[in-house]
């Protein structure tokens, strides 16, 4: 019954993961959904290029990554004062911790999100793909068009920074409430 090469149910099923990835990239929920919408539109246009039987998630993630990188590049051309360094204050300010569902407002979880938000975009992205999405390093490298070594070094730097941030947490904050 599924005639179209890209059945809508699979695209629908991919939306939550696309939104999560987008939010990690953009750091802001509204802009993230714009990115998802753009990604879905591109995926629809390019649906003939998707090979059935291959991983739709990886294919759509790749589209999203490319859309994001291109958008960022053009916004940087328009505003030359925007620093290329993702670790600047403006880069950090862009990252806002979305409000998790009420059941999950446990202090530690919010802190984990905040710490991830303080990482440079490339590290956040790689960390999400490897640790949360559990993608293979090689898959991530292909997706991001970088060598596997780059994926691993981003990942290990991200993990090290998260560890240090967790250790730096003032003792008073370690208690809930």
């Amino acid at each position, binding site marked *: 019954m599924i005639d179209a090469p890209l059945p809508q149910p699979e695209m629908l099923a991919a939306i939550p993961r696309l939104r999560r990835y987008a939010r990690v990239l953009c750091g802001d929920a509204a802009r993230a959904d714009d990115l998802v919408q753009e990604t879905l539109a591109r995926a629809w246009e390019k649906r003939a290029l998707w090979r059935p039987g291959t991983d739709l998630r990886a294919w759509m993630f790749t589209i999203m990554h490319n859309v994001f990188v291109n958008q960022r590049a053009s916004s940087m051309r328009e505003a030359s004062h925007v620093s290329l360094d993702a670790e600047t204050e403006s880069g950090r300010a862009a990252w806002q911790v979305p409000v998790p569902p009420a059941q999950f407002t446990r202090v*530690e979880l919010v802190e984990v999100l905040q710490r991830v938000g303080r990482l440079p975009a490339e590290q956040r992205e790689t960390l*999400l793909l490897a640790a949360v999405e559990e993608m293979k390093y090689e898959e991530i490298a292909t997706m991001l068009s970088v060598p596997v070594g780059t994926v691993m070094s981003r990942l290990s730097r991200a993990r090290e920074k998260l560890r240090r941030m967790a250790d730096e947490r003032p003792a008073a904050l370690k208690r809930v409430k």
Partner: protein
Amino acid sequence: MSAMPITDDDLMAYADGQLEGERREAVEQALARDSALAGRVGAIREQNAALRDAFDPWLAEAIPPRLVAATSGTARGSRLARHGPALAAAATLLLGVALGWFGRDAMLERSGTPTSFARQAAFTHTLYAADQRRPVEVWANEEAGLVRWLTRRMGTQAHVPDLNALGYALVGGRLVAGNERPTGLVMYENADKQRLTLQWRLTKEKPSENGEAAFRYVHEEGVSVFHWVDDDCAYALSGPLERTRLLAVARVVYGQLATPGKAAPAEAPPGGAPASPPGPSRTQG
């Protein structure tokens, strides 16, 4: 004995489950010798678990209708956009199935969608059949264990039909969170990588007055589903098959699951009673 030293990258790849072959063995030997190394692997895994705990709840959030509309290339204001809220609710529900541990009652309530077993079966099918790496939790090579596990968790004897004669080999199975009760799922695949799933769960619904089952057909979100009730279980067979072909498979499944000597039921007329009525109307099937 002292092979290549274990690098940080080795430890990380090992913790992420991405190390194979000789390096994996070398790391395992080193971990057995050195508790500090083992501690570092443990720390990475703990960090991964904390990240998943923090980020997974995002997946359960309701999907904006404009994004649902975008999956069919339609712009706002189109026919699909109007149906967007219902589809968004359905997609949210789908995730509820994915995140079995997540408060699924709240999810169902929020989605506001009437959730028939067949509809859930279609979503669950779409979710897992599309999964390349982990479509099932227990693979076919452990079929006996799968049957024992599902029987225990579902409180009713599980039977896995043999569809090899139809060209469908067992992939494996899993337990999925149902609306009220856990649902068992077994998946099959043919040479064209086409996947079928059979899902079943205990039900209070009676087959029919005369104790006969009827096959009901629905088409949900691109998936064909035949469902029926027999004895104390509701069954749903889902797949991207054309109706008559899926019905042929459903008959075989029914034949293997039903009490010996019982004839396969007729297909219920569209929109008809849940079971085929006795007598003349059965000729419709």
